[in-house]
């Protein structure tokens, strides 16, 4: 006789909508595991999966799975003691999350295939450490065993944390056979600042600045995610004009970074014209951002409930002209790439990642779309102005450096059209004054999702009985994608690593938090 399948149990939650914490079902671990795996099998992605401490020394696992088909989130929890059977062997998506859980709260996912710290900091839970390190023991990033290949002609190459270029620190360990990469292991954590811990007890005057600097190049993306969580918790309605301006800022951020990336990709293959032009054009987009809010990276623009700078007709007029002019130049500079055979020869078939692998690893953003996965928070879980202004999802199916470059180029064009349309649609009347500060809902949970230029940004906020932050979880797109880069490098030439790395262009500080 066949056993009747037990239906999954979880709280169905919409992004950017609050719910009471007590409505999140706390399951027995077996049920938690079954629900997790069956949801993932039915197409859900892991947006967040973390532990928060409970008073009695146990930890509560909380899973936030996003189900694009129904545009909802499945939220459920389980209480575990010092250890629990790891999900990673059955669900590779959980790999990095479970390492993070072990590192932060000393809860050991038993049977995890490669249990190492991800950021190299001391455990948050007093007297509990997944690796039995004593308090006060020095913890140094990358100071750990690395996966090693052995055999004749196998050699190891260590790169970083200090790099030759002006980039962030990270350590890369290659196992090579001649010029061929057998395996790449990436060790991060040098940029760990403890932002999530610093946010606890908020919101205060500092919180928004923490959010804006989670990843410096994604200021707008993270600031919107933070603000949407605040607005949901305090029940604030954002005026339409502010929503449109946020959308414009977010797309300007995308334009600047994508353009810079295409230039950097050209630079990595030694193709100088596009490198030089795109470097300048990225600056043009940053200047447009500055024209709207005074900061080239959009700092100080997005605030809970509003945006801080209005845009009048004259400013919009100037912006449109500048945008058209810049876009004309971008078109010329970028089409040089596609028209140069020697560039295409380098881009095509380099660092290719299969669609199945990308889906199994849970990649997000440009890297996922370049593998043919149609996922984009702006379409799947529309927020703000994207509920009214649709941005088509740009995908390509080859999964190589070319695909990641081409998807960027398609998105540049879509973002340009979006900004143009929305600048035209911007209401003339000035922004309404900010409503008085509202109380935050106590004992609640809210999950906010935005599509930053790298991909899905997820903020999960849990409030305490006083309505303050009890737990703040940030999942930057880089957190999902770093392992994808490592897998894309397998059986590639080690000399192609910088090119592959640039095509992902992941954030170190966004990962390290």
């Amino acid at each position: 006789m066949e056993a009747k399948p037990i239906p999954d149990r979880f709280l169905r939650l919409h992004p950017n909508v609050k719910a009471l914490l007590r409505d999140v079902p706390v399951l027995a671990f077996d049920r938690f595991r079954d629900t997790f795996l069956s949801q993932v099998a039915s197409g859900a992605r892991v947006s967040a999966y973390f532990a928060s401490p409970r008073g009695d020394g146990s930890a509560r696992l909380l899973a936030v799975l996003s189900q694009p088909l129904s545009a909802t989130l499945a939220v459920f929890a389980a209480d575990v003691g010092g250890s629990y059977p790891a999900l990673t062997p059955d669900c590779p998506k959980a790999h990095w999350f479970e390492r993070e859980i072990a590192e932060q709260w000393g809860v050991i996912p038993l049977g995890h295939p490669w249990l190492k710290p991800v950021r190299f900091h001391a455990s948050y839970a007093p007297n509990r450490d997944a690796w039995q390190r004593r308090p006060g023991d020095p913890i140094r990033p990358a100071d750990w065993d690395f996966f090693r290949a052995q055999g004749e002609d196998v050699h190891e190459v260590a790169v970083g944390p200090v790099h030759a270029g002006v980039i962030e620190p990270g350590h890369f360990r290659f196992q090579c056979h001649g010029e061929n990469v057998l395996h790449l292991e990436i060790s991060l954590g040098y940029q760990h600042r403890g932002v999530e811990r610093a946010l606890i007890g908020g919101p205060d005057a500092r919180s928004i600045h923490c959010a804006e600097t989670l990843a410096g190049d994604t200021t707008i993306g993270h600031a919107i995610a933070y603000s949407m969580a605040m607005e949901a918790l305090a029940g604030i309605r954002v005026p339409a004009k502010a929503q449109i301006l946020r959308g414009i800022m977010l797309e300007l951020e995308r334009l600047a970074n994508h353009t810079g990336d295409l230039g950097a990709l050209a630079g990595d293959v030694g193709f100088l014209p596009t490198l030089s032009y795109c470097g300048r054009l990225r600056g043009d987009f940053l200047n447009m951002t500055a024209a709207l809010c005074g900061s080239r990276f959009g700092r100080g623009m997005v605030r809970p409930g509003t945006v801080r700078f209005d845009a009048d007709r004259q400013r919009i007029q100037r912006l449109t002209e500048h945008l058209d002019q810049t876009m004309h130049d971008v078109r010329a500079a970028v089409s040089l790439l596609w028209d140069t055979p020697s560039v295409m020869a380098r881009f095509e078939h380099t660092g290719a990642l299969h669609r199945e692998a990308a889906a199994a690893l849970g990649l997000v953003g440009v890297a996922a779309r370049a593998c043919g996965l149609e996922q984009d928070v702006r379409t799947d879980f529309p927020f703000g102005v994207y509920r009214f202004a649709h941005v088509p999802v740009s995908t390509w199916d080859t999964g190589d450096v070319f695909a990641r470059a081409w998807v960027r180029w398609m998105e540049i064009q879509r973002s340009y059209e979006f900004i143009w349309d929305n600048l035209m649609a911007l209401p003339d009347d000035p922004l309404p004054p900010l409503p008085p500060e509202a109380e935050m809902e106590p004992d609640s949970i809210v999950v906010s999702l935005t599509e930053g230029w790298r991909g899905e940004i997820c903020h999960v906020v849990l409030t305490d009985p006083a309505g303050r932050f009890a737990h703040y979880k940030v999942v930057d797109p880089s957190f999902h994608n770093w392992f994808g880069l490592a897998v894309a490098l397998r059986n590639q030439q080690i000399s192609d690593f910088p090119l592959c790395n640039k095509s992902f262009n992941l954030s170190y500080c966004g990962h390290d938090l």
Partner: protein
Amino acid sequence: MIPVTTQMALLRLAAAFVLAPLLFGVINRTQALFAGRKGPPLLQMYFDIAKLMRKGTVISRTTTWVFRLGPIVGLSCVATGCLLVPFAGLPAPISFPGDFVVLVALLALMRFFTVSAALDTGSSFEGMGASREVQFSALAEPALLVSFAVLARQTSALSLSEMFGQVSVIFWQQAAPSFILVLAALFIVFLAENARIPFDDPNTHLELTMVHEVMVLDHGGPDLGFILYGSALKMWILGALIVNIVIPIHEISVWPDIFLFIVGMLLLAVAVGVVESVMARLRLLHVPQLLVGAVGLAILALMLMLGA
């Protein structure tokens, strides 16, 4: 009293020693022009070398005297090589039958010591660079030697000075196809040996992709100055081989000849700048294919010549 020809030879030698770093300035300016930038000053390489010569050196404790020897032997090799190569048609200060083999050997010796110095550091980066350099040069060297064989056959001469002294318009008329093939082979060797795009990217900061640049990462101060100046002289030598063939007119008189030759060298630098601006680097895996192609071109030229 030094004979006039030797005086002139020494004068042109001095020109080589003085003008060689200018080539880099011209290349960079050409690239900048294509990229819509202003570019560094034409004399930047001179400033760099002068700056490095005044600096101190930091030497890794893991290295030995082999590391110190690399830049010194390297510069001596190319400086000696300059004595063998005729510029602007007139004979070189030193000339004897078979000196072209010595020239190739000097370049190989330079490479041997550069590679040894790189391996001496024990760094995995420099090891990879050394491995690549040796692999590529093993393919570039035959192309250079076969090209010399073509010239030797055509001119029935065995010294560089005689070979290039005899290359004239008449020879071009007689064996243009062979000469064009040889020129193509030499230009490929020129780009590969001087670590230019599409073989190597002299401007990159990415250690994992470098060939030549990564081998000298640990050198600094005067040592690096020697290396930079050495690479300028190497570019001048290999460039002179090409320009001597392309501009075979050396019967006008000495000064116009020298002028034409220098203009030719600068145009060659412009050509390199153009190549670097219009194409990307080859995937490292494909570099040997292009070099084997250069060997093929040179052999084809030789076969045409033998058949004629």
